[in-house]
Protein backbone atom coordinates (compact mmCIF):
# COMPACT_ATOMS: atom_id res chain seq x y z
CA UNK A 1 0.00 0.00 0.00
CA UNK A 2 1.24 3.42 -0.87
CA UNK A 3 1.88 5.46 2.18
CA UNK A 4 -0.19 8.57 2.19
CA UNK A 5 1.47 11.40 3.98
CA UNK A 6 -1.23 13.08 5.97
CA UNK A 7 -0.05 16.66 6.27
CA UNK A 8 -2.62 17.44 8.93
CA UNK A 9 -0.73 15.42 11.53
CA UNK A 10 2.46 17.39 11.04
CA UNK A 11 2.17 20.09 13.61
CA UNK A 12 2.15 23.29 11.58
CA UNK A 13 5.09 25.58 12.08
CA UNK A 14 4.52 29.23 12.79
CA UNK A 15 4.63 31.56 9.79
CA UNK A 16 7.39 34.17 10.02
CA UNK A 17 4.92 37.02 9.86
CA UNK A 18 2.94 35.56 12.74
CA UNK A 19 5.66 35.75 15.37
CA UNK A 20 5.25 39.44 16.10
CA UNK A 21 1.44 39.34 16.50
CA UNK A 22 1.82 36.29 18.73
CA UNK A 23 4.29 37.98 21.05
CA UNK A 24 2.33 41.21 21.16
CA UNK A 25 -1.03 39.55 21.73
CA UNK A 26 0.26 37.24 24.46
CA UNK A 27 1.91 40.16 26.25
CA UNK A 28 -1.35 42.10 25.96
CA UNK A 29 -3.28 39.18 27.43
CA UNK A 30 -1.50 39.74 30.70
CA UNK A 31 -1.38 43.55 30.46
CA UNK A 32 -5.10 43.91 29.73
CA UNK A 33 -5.80 41.24 32.30
CA UNK A 34 -3.91 43.38 34.80
CA UNK A 35 -5.98 46.43 33.85
CA UNK A 36 -9.18 44.42 34.31
CA UNK A 37 -8.46 43.33 37.88
CA UNK A 38 -6.66 46.58 38.70
CA UNK A 39 -9.58 48.80 37.70
CA UNK A 40 -12.07 46.43 39.30
CA UNK A 41 -10.23 46.55 42.63
CA UNK A 42 -9.61 50.29 42.46
CA UNK A 43 -13.32 50.96 41.94
CA UNK A 44 -14.29 48.61 44.75
CA UNK A 45 -11.97 50.18 47.31
CA UNK A 46 -13.03 53.64 46.21
CA UNK A 47 -9.80 54.80 44.55
CA UNK A 48 -11.68 55.20 41.24
CA UNK A 49 -15.20 56.46 40.58
CA UNK A 50 -18.02 53.97 39.98
CA UNK A 51 -18.39 54.79 36.28
CA UNK A 52 -14.98 53.24 35.58
CA UNK A 53 -16.34 49.75 36.19
CA UNK A 54 -17.56 49.05 32.62
CA UNK A 55 -14.04 49.92 31.53
CA UNK A 56 -12.78 46.98 33.59
CA UNK A 57 -15.03 44.60 31.68
CA UNK A 58 -13.96 46.11 28.38
CA UNK A 59 -10.42 45.15 29.34
CA UNK A 60 -11.55 41.63 30.12
CA UNK A 61 -13.04 41.42 26.62
CA UNK A 62 -9.77 42.66 25.15
CA UNK A 63 -7.90 40.06 27.18
CA UNK A 64 -10.08 37.27 25.85
CA UNK A 65 -9.76 38.58 22.30
CA UNK A 66 -5.95 38.73 22.50
CA UNK A 67 -5.84 35.21 23.90
CA UNK A 68 -8.00 34.08 21.00
CA UNK A 69 -5.63 35.69 18.46
CA UNK A 70 -2.63 34.18 20.20
CA UNK A 71 -4.14 30.70 20.32
CA UNK A 72 -5.23 30.65 16.70
CA UNK A 73 -1.92 31.98 15.34
CA UNK A 74 -0.07 29.36 17.37
CA UNK A 75 -2.39 26.60 16.11
CA UNK A 76 -3.00 25.26 19.60
CA UNK A 77 -4.65 21.85 19.88
CA UNK A 78 -8.20 21.15 21.07
CA UNK A 79 -7.22 20.41 24.62
CA UNK A 80 -5.18 23.58 25.00
CA UNK A 81 -7.92 25.65 23.36
CA UNK A 82 -10.43 24.38 25.92
CA UNK A 83 -8.00 24.99 28.77
CA UNK A 84 -7.44 28.57 27.62
CA UNK A 85 -11.20 29.14 27.35
CA UNK A 86 -11.70 27.87 30.89
CA UNK A 87 -8.86 30.07 32.10
CA UNK A 88 -10.62 33.13 30.65
CA UNK A 89 -13.88 32.35 32.45
CA UNK A 90 -11.98 31.72 35.64
CA UNK A 91 -10.24 35.01 35.15
CA UNK A 92 -13.54 36.84 34.78
CA UNK A 93 -14.69 35.47 38.15
CA UNK A 94 -11.37 35.77 40.00
CA UNK A 95 -11.49 39.41 41.19
CA UNK A 96 -15.15 39.03 42.23
CA UNK A 97 -14.30 36.06 44.43
CA UNK A 98 -11.22 37.78 45.83
CA UNK A 99 -13.05 40.97 46.65
CA UNK A 100 -15.95 39.11 48.20
CA UNK A 101 -13.62 37.23 50.53
CA UNK A 102 -11.48 40.21 51.49
CA UNK A 103 -14.57 42.26 52.17
CA UNK A 104 -16.06 39.60 54.43
CA UNK A 105 -12.93 39.34 56.50
CA UNK A 106 -12.87 43.09 56.92
CA UNK A 107 -16.52 43.17 57.90
CA UNK A 108 -16.04 40.44 60.45
CA UNK A 109 -12.97 41.94 62.00
CA UNK A 110 -13.61 45.65 61.89
CA UNK A 111 -16.92 45.63 63.72
Amino acid sequence: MVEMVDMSVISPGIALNDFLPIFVSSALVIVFGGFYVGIYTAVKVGMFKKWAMPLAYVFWLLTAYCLYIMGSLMHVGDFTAKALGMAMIGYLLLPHAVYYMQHQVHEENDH
Partner: protein
Amino acid sequence: MTNKSVWSDSRFWQRSASWVTGFAAILLIWLTFDTSAQISMGTDSDLQNGVTKRVPGPTVINYKITYEMSTKRGHEVPVIGEKEKFFGRDDYSEEEAGELLHLGKLGSQAKNCMDCHTLLGNGGYYAPDLTKAWLDPAWGPEGSLQAMTGKNTKEEAMAEFLQHPSQYPTHARMMPNLGITAKEAKGLVAFLKHLSSIDTNGFPRNFGKIQGAIHGK
Protein backbone atom coordinates in the same frame (compact mmCIF):
# COMPACT_ATOMS: atom_id res chain seq x y z
CA MET B 1 -19.05 37.88 67.18
CA THR B 2 -20.93 37.61 63.93
CA ASN B 3 -21.17 34.35 62.07
CA LYS B 4 -18.02 33.47 60.25
CA SER B 5 -18.38 32.41 56.65
CA VAL B 6 -16.10 29.60 55.58
CA TRP B 7 -14.66 31.82 52.84
CA SER B 8 -13.20 34.22 55.33
CA ASP B 9 -11.89 31.55 57.65
CA SER B 10 -8.12 31.51 57.71
CA ARG B 11 -8.02 27.86 58.78
CA PHE B 12 -10.12 26.87 55.79
CA TRP B 13 -7.58 28.47 53.47
CA GLN B 14 -4.68 27.00 55.37
CA ARG B 15 -6.15 23.54 54.88
CA SER B 16 -6.92 24.28 51.24
CA ALA B 17 -3.35 25.40 50.66
CA SER B 18 -2.04 22.20 52.21
CA TRP B 19 -4.37 20.03 50.13
CA VAL B 20 -3.63 21.82 46.88
CA THR B 21 0.12 21.69 47.51
CA GLY B 22 0.01 18.06 48.55
CA PHE B 23 -2.07 17.11 45.55
CA ALA B 24 0.21 18.93 43.10
CA ALA B 25 3.30 17.42 44.72
CA ILE B 26 1.88 13.88 44.57
CA LEU B 27 0.94 14.35 40.94
CA LEU B 28 4.46 15.58 40.19
CA ILE B 29 6.01 12.59 41.96
CA TRP B 30 3.74 10.18 40.12
CA LEU B 31 4.63 11.79 36.77
CA THR B 32 8.29 11.63 37.77
CA PHE B 33 8.06 7.85 38.11
CA ASP B 34 6.48 7.58 34.69
CA THR B 35 8.95 9.96 33.07
CA SER B 36 11.96 8.36 34.76
CA ALA B 37 11.07 5.02 33.22
CA GLN B 38 10.80 6.64 29.80
CA ILE B 39 14.05 8.60 29.98
CA SER B 40 16.29 5.90 31.42
CA MET B 41 19.20 5.17 29.12
CA GLY B 42 18.77 2.31 26.65
CA THR B 43 21.15 -0.61 26.19
CA ASP B 44 23.23 -2.05 23.41
CA SER B 45 20.69 -4.80 22.80
CA ASP B 46 17.93 -2.18 22.45
CA LEU B 47 19.96 -0.66 19.64
CA GLN B 48 20.63 -4.03 17.99
CA ASN B 49 16.96 -5.01 18.19
CA GLY B 50 15.70 -1.68 16.91
CA VAL B 51 13.98 -0.77 20.19
CA THR B 52 13.44 2.99 20.16
CA LYS B 53 14.44 4.71 23.39
CA ARG B 54 14.08 8.40 24.11
CA VAL B 55 17.67 8.33 25.40
CA PRO B 56 19.57 5.56 23.59
CA GLY B 57 22.48 3.67 25.13
CA PRO B 58 26.06 4.92 24.75
CA THR B 59 26.78 2.46 21.91
CA VAL B 60 24.67 4.68 19.70
CA ILE B 61 28.06 6.13 18.71
CA ASN B 62 28.51 3.01 16.53
CA TYR B 63 25.60 4.11 14.33
CA LYS B 64 24.69 6.81 11.87
CA ILE B 65 22.24 9.33 13.32
CA THR B 66 19.91 11.54 11.29
CA TYR B 67 17.13 13.95 12.21
CA GLU B 68 14.02 13.42 10.12
CA MET B 69 10.41 14.54 9.95
CA SER B 70 8.12 11.90 11.37
CA THR B 71 4.62 11.95 9.94
CA LYS B 72 3.37 10.04 12.96
CA ARG B 73 4.82 12.40 15.55
CA GLY B 74 4.33 15.57 13.52
CA HIS B 75 7.86 16.84 14.05
CA GLU B 76 11.48 15.86 13.50
CA VAL B 77 12.91 12.92 15.45
CA PRO B 78 16.39 11.39 15.57
CA VAL B 79 16.65 8.25 13.47
CA ILE B 80 19.36 5.66 14.17
CA GLY B 81 20.52 4.08 10.94
CA GLU B 82 23.25 1.71 9.77
CA LYS B 83 26.66 1.33 11.36
CA GLU B 84 29.02 4.28 11.08
CA LYS B 85 32.67 4.57 12.04
CA PHE B 86 33.54 6.80 14.99
CA PHE B 87 37.28 7.53 15.26
CA GLY B 88 37.83 4.59 12.90
CA ARG B 89 35.73 2.02 14.76
CA ASP B 90 32.10 0.93 14.82
CA ASP B 91 32.42 -1.86 17.35
CA TYR B 92 32.66 -0.03 20.68
CA SER B 93 31.49 -2.33 23.44
CA GLU B 94 28.87 -1.14 25.90
CA GLU B 95 31.63 -0.61 28.46
CA GLU B 96 33.98 1.30 26.13
CA ALA B 97 31.21 3.53 24.81
CA GLY B 98 29.92 4.06 28.34
CA GLU B 99 33.36 5.18 29.49
CA LEU B 100 33.64 7.64 26.59
CA LEU B 101 30.24 9.08 27.37
CA HIS B 102 31.08 9.31 31.07
CA LEU B 103 34.28 11.17 30.27
CA GLY B 104 32.45 13.48 27.87
CA LYS B 105 29.62 14.29 30.26
CA LEU B 106 32.11 15.00 33.05
CA GLY B 107 34.11 17.14 30.63
CA SER B 108 31.03 19.11 29.62
CA GLN B 109 30.58 20.06 33.29
CA ALA B 110 34.27 20.49 34.20
CA LYS B 111 34.72 23.01 31.34
CA ASN B 112 31.49 24.91 32.08
CA CYS B 113 30.18 24.37 28.53
CA MET B 114 26.70 25.34 29.68
CA ASP B 115 27.75 28.85 30.62
CA CYS B 116 28.24 29.85 26.96
CA HIS B 117 26.41 27.16 24.99
CA THR B 118 22.96 25.73 25.41
CA LEU B 119 22.54 21.96 25.78
CA LEU B 120 18.98 20.81 25.07
CA GLY B 121 18.34 24.55 24.85
CA ASN B 122 19.41 25.27 28.44
CA GLY B 123 22.50 27.27 29.35
CA GLY B 124 24.13 30.46 28.09
CA TYR B 125 23.21 32.21 24.87
CA TYR B 126 26.69 33.38 23.93
CA ALA B 127 27.47 30.46 21.62
CA PRO B 128 25.55 28.03 19.39
CA ASP B 129 23.15 25.42 20.72
CA LEU B 130 24.82 22.00 20.96
CA THR B 131 21.71 19.81 21.08
CA LYS B 132 22.13 18.67 17.47
CA ALA B 133 25.71 19.92 16.95
CA TRP B 134 26.74 16.46 15.77
CA LEU B 135 24.26 16.75 12.88
CA ASP B 136 25.26 20.30 11.92
CA PRO B 137 25.96 20.53 8.18
CA ALA B 138 28.91 22.82 8.98
CA TRP B 139 30.76 19.84 10.52
CA GLY B 140 29.79 17.51 7.65
CA PRO B 141 31.96 16.53 4.67
CA GLU B 142 30.98 19.68 2.73
CA GLY B 143 30.98 21.87 5.79
CA SER B 144 33.15 24.89 6.40
CA LEU B 145 34.10 23.87 9.91
CA GLN B 146 35.40 20.47 8.89
CA ALA B 147 37.36 22.03 6.03
CA MET B 148 38.84 24.62 8.37
CA THR B 149 40.44 22.01 10.63
CA GLY B 150 41.88 20.04 7.69
CA LYS B 151 40.47 16.76 9.03
CA ASN B 152 38.63 14.12 7.02
CA THR B 153 35.94 13.08 9.44
CA LYS B 154 33.41 14.94 11.50
CA GLU B 155 34.62 13.50 14.81
CA GLU B 156 38.26 14.31 14.17
CA ALA B 157 37.38 17.83 13.07
CA MET B 158 35.32 18.44 16.20
CA ALA B 159 38.00 16.99 18.46
CA GLU B 160 40.68 19.14 16.82
CA PHE B 161 38.57 22.26 17.25
CA LEU B 162 37.86 21.50 20.91
CA GLN B 163 41.57 21.16 21.68
CA HIS B 164 42.64 24.34 19.89
CA PRO B 165 39.54 26.51 19.59
CA SER B 166 41.28 29.86 19.33
CA GLN B 167 43.29 28.65 16.32
CA TYR B 168 40.03 28.27 14.41
CA PRO B 169 38.06 31.46 14.84
CA THR B 170 34.60 31.15 13.28
CA HIS B 171 33.37 34.54 14.41
CA ALA B 172 34.71 37.60 16.25
CA ARG B 173 33.32 35.82 19.30
CA MET B 174 35.77 32.93 19.82
CA MET B 175 35.81 29.88 22.01
CA PRO B 176 38.62 30.14 24.59
CA ASN B 177 41.24 27.48 25.15
CA LEU B 178 39.96 25.35 28.04
CA GLY B 179 42.88 22.94 28.26
CA ILE B 180 40.91 20.09 26.71
CA THR B 181 43.17 17.05 26.14
CA ALA B 182 42.93 14.70 23.14
CA LYS B 183 41.30 12.06 25.31
CA GLU B 184 38.80 14.52 26.77
CA ALA B 185 38.02 15.82 23.28
CA LYS B 186 37.18 12.29 22.13
CA GLY B 187 34.88 11.87 25.11
CA LEU B 188 33.22 15.24 24.45
CA VAL B 189 32.57 14.35 20.81
CA ALA B 190 31.04 11.01 21.92
CA PHE B 191 28.89 12.98 24.37
CA LEU B 192 27.76 15.31 21.56
CA LYS B 193 26.98 12.41 19.24
CA HIS B 194 24.94 10.74 21.97
CA LEU B 195 23.22 14.06 22.74
CA SER B 196 22.04 14.33 19.12
CA SER B 197 20.35 10.93 19.38
CA ILE B 198 18.06 12.02 22.23
CA ASP B 199 14.40 12.41 21.27
CA THR B 200 13.69 16.07 22.05
CA ASN B 201 10.10 16.23 20.75
CA GLY B 202 11.19 18.10 17.63
CA PHE B 203 13.49 20.69 19.19
CA PRO B 204 15.08 22.41 17.37
CA ARG B 205 12.58 22.83 14.59
CA ASN B 206 13.72 23.04 10.92
CA PHE B 207 17.26 22.12 11.91
CA GLY B 208 19.70 22.58 9.08
CA LYS B 209 17.15 23.57 6.46
CA ILE B 210 18.96 26.76 5.69
CA GLN B 211 16.92 27.60 2.62
CA GLY B 212 14.05 25.29 3.23
CA ALA B 213 12.33 26.64 6.29
CA ILE B 214 8.66 25.80 5.83
CA HIS B 215 7.56 29.38 5.57
CA GLY B 216 10.95 30.85 4.75
CA LYS B 217 11.23 33.80 2.47
